């Protein structure tokens, strides 16, 4: 039997969690498992805490509640830079349900928003108050997330691209995000992240360092393209093989960096 426990605050909900429980956010991940009789858990924990759905703005610093949906991101002017990533998730019905927190937990090849957040150096604030980098969170993926802390990117420095075989909406062959910060006309402190290229969304440090100090043009990014899949062993799945992902990653990285037209 499956038990559902509803708590008024996220704190109480978090303390009710154990390895037999799953935290219900938008439902798109957990209810699928429930419908298919997943017996790795026998309790659903949820909260009616409205604070989870808040978007708080302090200058260029934003705090996005874990319960904020993709649809809410699309509706928020403050989060306009996340629109391409939020729009890449599901159809309208899924976007009305899928939450930021859930996207961090989504298994391969899902988690397109998390790819964007990785490239934005988002910080995860847990219900416990602990703060950790999204990269560290993705490595362990446990605990209940309260919110994400994001610094708004400047101008057009943030790029997101999802490669999918089905239009207008399909699962990722890969997704890519980059924050192309510059110093004195040269790239500096760049962040690049991939989705569907590893078991979780990942930062691609080899590419980031190859972009350090170069100009954003064909010649400048050559080394970065060569390093596009360094250290990665992309998975095989029904959408594409690891071989294919590895072969086309440099192409899509170039298109992302240089803003070339997607097909």
């Amino acid at each position, binding site marked *: *039997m*499956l*038990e*559902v426990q*509803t708590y008024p605050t996220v704190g109480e909900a978090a303390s009710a969690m154990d390895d037999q429980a799953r935290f*219900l956010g938008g*439902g*798109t991940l957990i*209810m*699928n498992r*429930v*419908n*298919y009789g997943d017996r790795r858990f026998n309790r*659903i924990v*949820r909260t009616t805490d409205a604070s989870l759905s808040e978007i708080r703005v302090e200058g260029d610093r934003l705090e996005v509640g874990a319960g904020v949906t993709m*649809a809410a991101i699309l509706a928020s002017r403050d989060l306009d830079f996340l629109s391409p990533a939020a729009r890449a998730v*599901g*159809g*309208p*019905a*899924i976007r*009305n*349900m899928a939450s930021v927190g859930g996207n961090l937990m989504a298994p391969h090849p899902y988690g397109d928003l998390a790819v964007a957040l990785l490239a934005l150096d988002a910080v995860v604030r847990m219900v416990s108050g602990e703060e950790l980098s999204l990269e560290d969170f993705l490595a362990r993926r446990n605990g209940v997330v309260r919110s994400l802390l994001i610094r708004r990117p400047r101008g057009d420095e943030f790029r997101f691209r999802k490669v999918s075989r089905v*239009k*207008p*909406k399909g699962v990722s062959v890969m997704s890519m995000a980059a924050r192309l910060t510059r110093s004195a006309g040269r790239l500096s402190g760049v962040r690049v992240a991939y989705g569907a290229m590893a078991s979780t969304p990942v930062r691609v440090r080899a590419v980031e360092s190859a972009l350090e100090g170069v100009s954003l043009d064909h010649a400048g990014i050559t080394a970065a393209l060569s390093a596009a899949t360094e250290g990665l062993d992309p998975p095989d799945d029904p959408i594409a093989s690891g071989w294919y992902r590895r072969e086309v990653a440099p192409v899509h990285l170039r298109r992302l960096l240089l803003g070339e037209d997607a097909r």
Partner: protein
Amino acid sequence: MKSPVTFRLNGSETAVFVDSGANLLDVLRRGCGDLSPKYGCGQGSCGACTVLIGGEPHVSCLVLAETVAGRSVETTGGLSNGPDLHPLQRAFIEGFAAQCGYCTPGMLMSAKALLDRNPSPTRSEVEEAISGNLCRCTGYEPIIDAILEAAKQRGAA
């Protein structure tokens, strides 16, 4: 374990007992007797169960039923006003936009959500609006055309 849930279904107050962990699709179909939303996957990947909650489309197979307490739920079963069909229904009929008809109720709900918010959508907005609704028969084109036609008719009315 069953618990009572009260919500508005197509404008009428509805109370129903739901099993712990039940999804909204099962509750609408078996608890409320509204058979218009269809089961196609239980995974949120086909859209046949799409209903509107608070006017917004949701895949009801992934909605924990008790979360709709106090909210308004709309289904294709309530789309027509008595015998008067909704412009979308008329456009689907005249545009031959259904074959087996199994995806149709979900398509209509996604389309209604679009037109309620955006009375004169572009073709690509229509494609985006039904991007979570699968159809295996029609190739989508007659459906897209019918939704655009319904928007036109509604604008003209």
